[in-house]
């Protein structure tokens, strides 16, 4: 019995397997041919192949034993300055054994690094260029400090276009004996918007429920997969049940570990979809913005967000009057 997460099982192993991001792949392939890689920034939304491209590059460059020449760090988990001073420095300065004189360090989610850590990184990158090349993956290159950006070759990843998305998903469905109906594939693209990781995870979850995957199944999966059912919470509040809404908020924060800033981002989006008078929407956005700022300042997530929920209760009450 061999089961794994399909997103991993079908991750391309070589640059040649990558169906998307054509221009990027071409340039990276030319690095492999030249056996030289500059420092790089891979910027783009999630699920568009940044980490995959970095791993493929390393594998194509070093062959099967590529693991020995590669270090993968994730800035979200190890974002402090000490990681730069110790782990990264130690790896970067030791010489590589083999034909290629440098190693590769993939720094994933690099936009989550503190600016102190980034400043420290900048010198390390310069000093050890000969022995180590950095590939920084980030959602927003803007969050990476200017001096690092100027030392790196930038690559901009974009969401997969519909066609490439479909090819990929169909290929997986075939291999896994899943009957993927046309409206199912359409729904997948619609809910995942070209985020391939999410699309594959959605497909696999759907397949665990039924081997025949249609649009309805896909929608039910995405419904279940978002523990932060912000829309439901807001409706509870608008219906006048503050305590119920606060309980849902509490569950999201504590039980499912959803971050407050993620919830507020969704609330912001939902406001414009609500069936309430237009002027109220902008009023609510104003309050949302203030709460957002307070969260960034480090205020208590639940207290601040429930203050916002109470305003939704108020709006609902006004509408019923």
């Amino acid at each position, binding site marked *: 019995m061999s*089961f*794994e997460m399909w997103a991993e099982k079908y991750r391309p192993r070589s640059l040649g397997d990558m169906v998307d991001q054509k221009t990027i792949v071409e340039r990276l392939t030319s690095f492999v041919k030249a056996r030289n890689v500059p420092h790089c920034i891979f910027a783009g939304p999630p699920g568009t192949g940044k980490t995959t491209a970095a791993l493929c590059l390393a594998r194509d460059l070093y062959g099967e034993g590529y693991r020995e020449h590669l270090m993968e760090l994730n800035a979200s988990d190890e974002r402090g300055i000490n990681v730069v001073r110790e782990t990264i420095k130690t790896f970067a300065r030791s010489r590589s054994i083999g034909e290629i004189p440098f190693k590769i360090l993939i720094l994933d989610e690099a936009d989550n690094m503190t600016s102190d850590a980034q400043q420290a990184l900048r010198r390390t990158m310069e000093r050890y260029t000969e022995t180590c090349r950095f590939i920084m993956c980030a959602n927003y290159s803007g969050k990476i400090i200017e001096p690092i950006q100027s030392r790196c070759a930038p690559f901009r990843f974009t969401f997969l276009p519909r066609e490439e998305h479909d090819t990929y998903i169909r290929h997986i469905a075939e291999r896994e004996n899943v009957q993927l109906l046309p409206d199912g594939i359409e729904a997948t693209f619609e809910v995942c918007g070209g985020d391939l990781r999410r699309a594959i995870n959605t497909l696999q979850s759907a397949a665990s429920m039924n081997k025949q995957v249609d649009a309805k199944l896909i929608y039910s999966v995405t419904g279940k997969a978002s523990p932060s059912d912000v829309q439901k919470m807001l409706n509870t509040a608008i219906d006048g049940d503050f305590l119920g809404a606060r309980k849902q908020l509490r569950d999201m924060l504590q039980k499912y570990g959803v971050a407050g800033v993620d919830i507020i981002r969704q609330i912001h989006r939902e406001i414009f979809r609500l069936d309430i008078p237009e002027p109220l929407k902008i009023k609510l956005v104003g309050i949302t913005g203030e709460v957002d700022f307070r969260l960034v300042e480090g*205020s208590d997530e639940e207290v601040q967000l429930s203050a916002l929920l109470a305003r939704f209760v108020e709006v609902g009450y006004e509408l019923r009057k």
Partner: protein
Amino acid sequence: MYAAWTVKHKPKSTAEIVGNHSAIKAFHDWVNSWSKGVPKKRAAFLYGPPGVGKTVSVEALAHGLHMELVEKNASDYRTEDAINRFAGLASQYASLFGGSRIVLLDELDGLMGNADKGGVKAITSIVKTARCPIVIIANNAYDPRFRTLRSYCLLINFKKPMASSIAKRLQYICELEGIQADENALKFLAQRSGGDVRSAVNDLQALAQGKKRLTYDDVSWLAYRDRQESIFSVLKMIVYGRTTYGAKQAVDMADVDIDMLFEWIYENAPAHLTDPHDLAEAIDALAVADVYRGRIRASQDWSYMRYVIDFMTAGVAMARQNSKVGGWIPFKFPSRIMMLSRSKAQRALRKRLGLKIRRKCHISAARASKEFVPFLRIIFKNDVQMATGIAKWLDLDEEMVEYVVGTKAKAGKITAFLR
């Protein structure tokens, strides 16, 4: 909405009152002595700590002797009008319907400050000539303001009843309410009350109402509570406060620290604010208090604490504009605190699970729990075979599998294959 148990289960006769038998007997004898003519002391001054049964004794006795009880509220004393009316009542031998009457002046120490020094004097002169029993109740009879008044009164001291007697009373109430209560749970409540029977009954209601059973675990968290002024009455001062000053005072009376008091208010205020505008304003005030807490943390400048206090107490109190004062709504222990300590272990588990996923899927532990776990949850619930494969591949332990599927039963099916 329920009736307060302190009202519902108020003693109907003096025999039901917890403790203070000799005080009640002395009081009874004095009231009886009126039937043989006006006694030397025309007023009885009942004093003692709150919640030991002073008022209830008067009520039960009057009821038992079929006397009319005329009760004056503390807030009436101020007005000259009320004092005159009171004088009129006291000067008559009997009530309109021929029976005898007792005039009760409750909570005498509650109100009078410098503003109405004349009040005690006026009461004293009425007592001197009273023609029916007058009962004065205060916590401290030895307050200097009462020096003259005291000399015209029969002083009767009510003491704190023993915890075992209070526990017995609680047991009796539980039987009436159909609650099976552990003996040590009631003993704990009785001891915590420090002799205040009323607060013990209030606590009992808050903890036991609607339950079939009351265990020691249900009550033991009360250890957080202080005795000086129970957290419930502190909350009342805040949630139903009418002045900013009064609400702010509450902080000094609570023995819990500011953060804990904040949690109590945050948990309980919403249920007591029926009007959505009031609710929004109150939570807003709490949110602002929280912002100042953050500023204290950031700047380490504790002088901002005054704003935290102002907003969490007075801010919440002043939010009440249109909310109705409903029936009995029990105050609850802040459930967020309980959840936080419970979810601490869960957070650690989530982190470990995230790290397992990271090893295989090239994604941070933080994002793994956001982007993978929800999907894993669906797969694990629906396809045992696929779930088992993935659990093996990710090298999950049983605890993690259980966290993902949510139930022990389903986890068992998956982990059975793992072994």
